[in-house]
């Protein structure tokens, strides 16, 4: 009986040890993950909020000629 109880404690310990190791490993990695993810997230937010400026690639300012070209291409 005592042997059984001791075995159970040992078995529970196996998983607990594994969990502790994994937790330690993740904790070590999380810092580097945070550092890597933060600039990307900030850049994405800035990109989303900033108003496009004339002259930037992809910004259309000459509406009449663009419309003409679109109509022409649709024909």
């Amino acid at each position, binding site marked *: 009986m005592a042997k059984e109880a001791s075995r159970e404690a040992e078995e529970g310990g196996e998983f607990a040890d594994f969990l502790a190791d994994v*937790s330690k490993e993740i904790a070590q990695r999380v810092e580097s993950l945070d550092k890597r993810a933060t600039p990307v997230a900030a850049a994405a937010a800035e990109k989303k909020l900033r108003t496009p400026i004339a002259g930037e690639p992809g910004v259309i300012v000459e509406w009449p000629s663009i419309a003409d070209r679109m109509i022409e291409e649709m024909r």
Partner: protein
Amino acid sequence: MSVVNYGTREITCKIVYYGPGRSGKTTNLQHVFSQLPDERKGKMVSLATDTDRTLFFDFLPLDLGTISGFATRFQLYTVPGQVYYAATRKLVLQGVDGVVFVADSQSRQRAENIESLQDLHANLADEGLDPRSVPLVMQYNKRDLPPAELSPVEEMDEVLNFRGVPHFSAAAAIGGKGVFETLRSISTLVLARLSAPATRES
């Protein structure tokens, strides 16, 4: 499969136990399952035939809870070892993050071990993964059998472990020996990739 999803703060690792038929892959998962505290015990899915052979695959989800702000889940799979289930092995390997190769230490199983390892490499390559860089550990199982029946560890290393990855040569999965050591080792290798440049993120 993404190892880490920063947006949802989730870490998911898929670990596949690979190896020839009857090498002890399912036994590894059964031991892990038996050691889980009740509150973490999910459902182990195991499809076996009447003769105890894995028909399709085994799947054991391990929910480790929130670690450093990340909901962490490990998914453990086995593949059917028999040669004719090649398509299933390919399917199970999809999105794999780490592999445990469970080799049968009996000397008469030498050819089966080699064939299975070659099969693993071919399937990883088909998946677009470099077999030389995928996180891998070797488990030389059944070391509890009579020494006369076993291949020496050095020989198994020479034949199977040309990458020089961590190996567990004192394994006897049926009694649980070496099972958690193996899992801990592959988990560390997989998690180490979280900060490596080649980490896949979503």
